[in-house]
C-alpha cells in the first residue's frame, strides 16, 4: 500500500491511536457500504440462488434435456414436470437449467473480453497524448456508431459453420458469440478508463512513482489502474447483463445457438409460436432472463454506491 513514510510532519496526528480504531480496510468499508443498499443485497441473494440452481441443478433434477415424450406435449406445470413441457414433450426445467448455464457463462465470458479490451485501449489512449489518443478515440466513436445488433447477426450467422467445424457445435458457437459480443461492447469501458487515466496521470503520487524510476508500464499497471478500477468494476457488472441480453436477443431471433442447445433466449424463440396454448413455455425463460438481468443491474448500482469513497450515504 502507500508505505509507512509520512508525506509531511503535519500528517502525523491523523494516524494517531484515536484514528486506528475507526479505520477499516478498503474492502471492508466497501462491503459495509454495499450492505446498506437493500435492493442490491436482495439481488445478490437472488443471483446467488440462480447461479447455484443452474450449477447444481442437473444433480437435483437428473432429467435428460432431449428426452422426447409425445404423450406429454405442451403440458402445464405439474409435479412430474415442475415447469411443464414443450411441443416435443421435453422437460422444461431440465432445459432451463442447462440453458441457464450457457446464458450465464456467455454473459461472464463476454464481460471479461469486453473489459479486457476496454482497459487496454482506454489505458493506452489515456496515457499517450496526441495522435495515438486521437486515433483510438476515433476508433471508439466509430464502433459506438456501428449498428451493433445487425452486425452481430451478420457475423454470427455467416461464421457459425466455420467455427463449428473448428471447436465443435457447442464450443464453436460459444466462442464466436463471446468474442463478437465482447468485441462490440468494450467502448464504454474504454472511454471510462481513458477519462480516469487522463486525470490520474497528473496526480502527485504518479509523479512520485515516476521520480522513483517507475517505467511507464509500471505506472499504468501498479499506480494508476488500481485507483481507476472502481468505476470499471461497476461498468463491468452492467456489461454482464447487457451481454446476457445480447445473447438472448440473438437466440430469440433464431440466429444464436442452434436448437439443440436450449439457452433461455432460444427457449423463448421456440415458445413464441405456442403462446396461446402453452404460455408457461415462454413465461419461465423470460422471467429467468428478467430476474438475472435485474439483479445484476441492482448489484451494479449497489457497487456504484459502495465503491465511490466521496459519496456520502
Amino acid at each position: 500500500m502507500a508505505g509507512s513514510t509520512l508525506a509531511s510532519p503535519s500528517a502525523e496526528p491523523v494516524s494517531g491511536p484515536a484514528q486506528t480504531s475507526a479505520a477499516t480496510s478498503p474492502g471492508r468499508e466497501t462491503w459495509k457500504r454495499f450492505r446498506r443498499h437493500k435492493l442490491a443485497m436482495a439481488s445478490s441473494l437472488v443471483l446467488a440462488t440462480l447461479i447455484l440452481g443452474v450449477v447444481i441443478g442437473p444433480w437435483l433434477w437428473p432429467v435428460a434435456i432431449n428426452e422426447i415424450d409425445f404423450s406429454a406435449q405442451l403440458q402445464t406445470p405439474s409435479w412430474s414436470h415442475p415447469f411443464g413441457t414443450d411441443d416435443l414433450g421435453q422437460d422444461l426445467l431440465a432445459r432451463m437449467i442447462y440453458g441457464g448455464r450457457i446464458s450465464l457463462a456467455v454473459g461472464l465470458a463476454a464481460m471479461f473480453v469486453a473489459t479486457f479490451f476496454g482497459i487496454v485501449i482506454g489505458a493506452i489512449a489515456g496515457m499517450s497524448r496526441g495522435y495515438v489518443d486521437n486515433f483510438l478515440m476515433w476508433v471508439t466513436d466509430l464502433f459506438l456508431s456501428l449498428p451493433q445488433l445487425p452486425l452481430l447477426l451478420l457475423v454470427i450467422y455467416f461464421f457459425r459453420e466455420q467455427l463449428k467445424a473448428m471447436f465443435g457445435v457447442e464450443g464453436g458457437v460459444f466462442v464466436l458469440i463471446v468474442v463478437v459480443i465482447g468485441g462490440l461492447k468494450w467502448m464504454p469501458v474504454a472511454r471510462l478508463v481513458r477519462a480516469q487515466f487522463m486525470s490520474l496521470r497528473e496526480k502527485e503520487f504518479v509523479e512520485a512513482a515516476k521520480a522513483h524510476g517507475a517505467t511507464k508500464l509500471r505506472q499504468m499497471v501498479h499506480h494508476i489502474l488500481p485507483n481507476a478500477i472502481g468505476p470499471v468494476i461497476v461498468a463491468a457488472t452492467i456489461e454482464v447483463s447487457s451481454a446476457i441480453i445480447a445473447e438472448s436477443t440473438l437466440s430469440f431471433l433464431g440466429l444464436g445457438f442452434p436448437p439443440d442447445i436450449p439457452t433461455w433466449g432460444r427457449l423463448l424463440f421456440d415458445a413464441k409460436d405456442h403462446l396461446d396454448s402453452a404460455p408457461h413455455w415462454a413465461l419461465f425463460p423470460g422471467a429467468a432472463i428478467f430476474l438475472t438481468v435485474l439483479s445484476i443491474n441492482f448489484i451494479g448500482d449497489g457497487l456504484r454506491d459502495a465503491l465511490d469513497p466521496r459519496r456520502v450515504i
Partner: protein
Amino acid sequence: MGAYLLRRLLIALPSLLGISLILFTVLAMAPGDPFSEMATNPNVPPEVREALRASFGLNDPIMVRYLRWLSNMVQGDWGFSFASRINVDRLILQRVPTTLFVVGSSQILALCIALPVGIYAATRPYSIFDQVANTLAFVGFSLPTFFTGLLLILIFSVWLDWFPFVYRSDLAATGWRWYWEMFRQAIMPITVLGLFQAASYTRYVRSAVLDVIRLDYVTTARAKGLGEKTVTLRHITRNALIPVVTLVALQMPAVFGGAIVTEQIFRIPGIGSLLIDAILANDTPVIMAVTFVFACLVVLFNLIADILYGWLDPRISFS
C-alpha cells in the same frame, strides 16, 4: 452555423466510410453467397454459375468490389435484390417509413414519460415517488424487449383479444377507420419500445436535473422571487436537458437494435425484418444496404444531437 454544419458533415463522412468498409469486409469474408444454392441445383451447370458470379463481379478482390459498390452507391445504384427481384433502393424505401414511424412514435412516448417523471423525481430526491420511479426504471430497462413484446401479446391479444398481434401495412379500411386500425396495431410495438427507452431516459433526466439543481444560479432565481414552477421549468430543465440530448443520441444504435426485435415479434414490415429475411436468404446486396442505412441513421441522429446541443447551450460556439 452553416460552416459548422459543413465541417460536422465532413467529420461524419470518414466515419461512414469506415463503417461501410467494416461491413463490406465482414460480408465479403463470409462464406456462402446468393449463388451457393445453385450448387445443389442439378439444373444449373457449374459453368453458368461461374458466368453469373463473374457477371456480378463476385470473383474480384475485396477492395475492387468495395470501391465499385461505393461508386455505385453514391450514384444511387444500390444493387439488385437476389431474393425479391427488385432494386434494393426501392425495397428499402418501401420499408423505411414503417420503421421510422414506429421508432419515432416510441421515442416521443419515451420522452413524454421520462421528462416529467425524471424532473419530478429529482426535485424531490429520495422521496417515496423518487424511490418508486427509480425502482420501476430499473425494472423497465432490465425487461428485454422480446420478453415484454411476448407478454403484451399474451395479455392483450391472446387473453383479452383487444389488439391484433400482426402488423399489416396494407389495411383495407379507409378514413377514420384506417386511423383506428392503425392505432390498434401500432400501440403494442410502440409501447414495448417506448417503455424500454423511457426507463433509461428517466434515469438520465433525474441525474442531469440533480446535477444542476444545487447550482448557485438556481438559488439566485429563487431568491429573486420566481415561482417554483418557473425555476424548475425555465432554469433547471433547460440546462439539465443538455447532457440528456447527448445520451439520447448515444442510445440510437440500441433503439434501432430494439426496433429489429420488435419488428420481428409483431411482424412489422420494416427494415429490421427485411434485414433478418435478407440474412436468412443470403441476399448480400440487401444486407449491405440495410446495415448501411442503419449506420447512416445513427450518424444522422448524432449530428442532430450536436446541433440541438448548440441550440440549447449558447455557451457552445460553432466557430
